[in-house]
Every structure is written in C-alpha cells, then in structure tokens.
C-alpha cells in the first residue's frame, strides 16, 4: 500500500504490514515469582498496547511467565562507548587476579593466630 504521508497519520499511528517499520520493543520476563527479570527477546509493534498483546502471546501463551516488562528499544539508554567501557589501558590492577595474595594471606593469618604449625 502506498498511502500518502500527507494525511499526517503515518507517523502518529504506525503501520503493520504495509512496508512501514514499526518500533522494536524489548521484552523481559519473570519466569516465576521472585526470579530476576531476564531478557526474553524482542518484537515489532506499532504501539505499546499491541506490544503488550504480542509480548503476552510470544512469551507467555504457554503460561511460562508471571510478569513481563515491555520497553520500547528507543527508550533504553544505551551505553556502548568503548572509551567508557573498554578503555585502552591496563586495568588488571582492578581485578583480584592482578595480585599475588598467597604470602600476604599467610602473614595475616599468622598474625591472627590462626595458623597451626603442622
């Protein structure tokens, strides 16, 4: 369908199935009460209402969820800047593996009188 955009409805209403690109929505699900919300997947929908309906059918039509969160992907604050997340400097000193702990630990235990002299 090639309905003219001049009607001014295309942007506000969104379309399905006529070549327009509906929004992408990310869906998170809680499998059972108390579980963390985990990313389930995503879907396309023209508005929040249909996104909720589709999420229900995609991620709980067999009753596999007790809660869903449906988030428009463009509403997610994306942080992927490598300068922030993967700076090109050695950061091993921030990891436990960057230290040799064995001798220091032994000395600490000895001070605390925890070491038997087997």
């Amino acid at each position, binding site marked *: 369908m090639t309905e003219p955009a001049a009607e001014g409805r295309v942007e506000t209403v969104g379309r399905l199935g006529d070549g327009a690109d509906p929004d992408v929505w990310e869906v998170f699900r809680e499998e059972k009460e108390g579980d963390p919300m985990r990313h389930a997947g995503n879907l396309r929908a023209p508005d929040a209402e249909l996104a909720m*309906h589709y999420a*229900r*059918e995609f991620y709980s039509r067999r009753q596999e969820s007790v809660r869903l969160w449906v988030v428009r992907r463009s509403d997610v604050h994306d942080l992927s800047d490598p300068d922030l997340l993967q700076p090109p400097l050695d950061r091993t000193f921030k990891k436990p593996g960057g230290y040799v702990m064995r001798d220091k630990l032994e000395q600490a235990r000895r001070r605390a009188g925890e070491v038997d002299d087997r």
Partner: protein
Amino acid sequence: MTEVTTARSALRTRPGRAGDLDPVDSTTLDGRTRDALAELLLTMADDEFVVGFWDSEWTGIAPALEQDVAFSSLAQDEIGHARVFYELLSRLAGGDADTIAFGRQPQGYRHARLLDHPRTDWAFSVARRYLYDTADAVRLEALAGGSFMPLANLVAKIRREETYHLAHLDAWVGRLAGGGEQPRSRLEGALERLWTDALTVFTPLTGDAESVLVEAGILGEPLALLAERWLKLTRGRFDALGLHVPIELGVPRADGRSGHGADFEWLWNEFTSVYRLEPGATW
C-alpha cells in the same frame, strides 16, 4: 444428534483431560433444565470451535509476524474453550466430546451465522471477531455467577482470558478506524456486511429452554435482552470511533443458527478431514 441429548453417566471423569472442569453431577438438574443447558452449551461450544478454525486460517499470512503468532494463539484459545464446553456437554448429556465436535454433518452444527462467513481480508476478520467477542462477553457475563457451579466456575476462568482477547480486538478496531482512508473504509464495509448476522449470536433457544435456564438461575437474562445490552455497548464504541455502521436492530431471528452455507461446508471439510479418515481412532 441423538448422542448429544441422550442422558448417560455424567459423573465420568477423564484424568488428564479438560482439567478446567469441576466434577459434574447432572442429577442436581431436572430433565428439562439439563436439556436446555445442553442446547445452550452446544451453541456456545460450536461458536468457539468455528471461530477458532476460521481465525486459524490466518496462520502464516497475517499482516505481520507478531500478529500472525498472536492471532493464531487467540484462535487456539477459542478451540480450547470449545473443548471444555464440549466436554462439559458430554458429561451432562452423554456422548463423547470428540465425536460431538467432529462427528456431525455440517448442518448439525449450531454456531451463529455470523461465523459462516469466510476469512476474507484482515479488516473483515477483525470486524467479525470483534462483533463475536463483544457478543460472547455479554453472554458470558450472563452466565457468570449462575447456579450450576461447573458452568459458573468454567465461565469465570474463560472470562479472564476473553477480556484480553477483546482488548486485542478492540485495539485493532481502533487502529483500523484511525489508520487512514483504506483501513477505515474496509472496516466499515466489513461491519456493514456482518452487522445483520451479528445478532445471530443471540438466536433464541428452542421452545421454552431460555426461560427454563433463567428460572433455574443458570442464565441471568433471556438472550433477547442480552442482545439489547450488546447493541448499546457496540454502538457506543462505534460512535466514539466515528464509524458509520448501519445499526438497525430487531429481534434475533429464530433461524440464526441453522442453514449454514457453502463457506462453512468448506471449513467443515477442512477441520474434519483428519477425523474422517478414521473416526474413533486414538491419536
């Protein structure tokens, strides 16, 4: 359909099947009430069954992948409702649910004529399903809180699911109504074609079956009154959306659940094709 109305052991239970049903003790009902309830159940089961099969015709070709999955799932839900209605019917009046569902000739089905139309286009299927779901919601409301507990409890469960079906369809009616010239005119055209048949969901039961059910406290109001309530609801919604639907309502016709045409016969051929290979076979 003698196998449907023949009273038989109604306490039979089938572990692992139709677990949504309470135990059924049909001896709490007198013969007239039981027959009337059996008729009502058959009409409701056939409605759900047939709309489920029509809408499953969209599997693979709905307007978008998401809608395809969703509409197919909704269709499955309706067939699930039909299954428990047939099961309840079989426990009440004897017979076997599968045989009732698949073993009749096309003219033996008691679904509303609204459900005799083929899938047609998307707007048509949305319009039809919307008309059916709103009518069904009014009917279910009149059965909720009824005196026959196996049915009242079942209806309570089904209503929770139908609320979402209706919200889904209502969203689509709103989208098509506000989605530009072509979606809107297609929706209006479909509603115009379907409107007179929508009332067939409220086709009167035979004889005094309705008053028997109302007196027994199973059905809240006669179907003709439910039809009026349904009309107010849908008219209000269409007015709010500015849809032009030629609403002229009379009393539901007596023949609204018979005389199914060639389109239904085609569908019947489809949905019984496996059953007819070997009736009675265990799958």
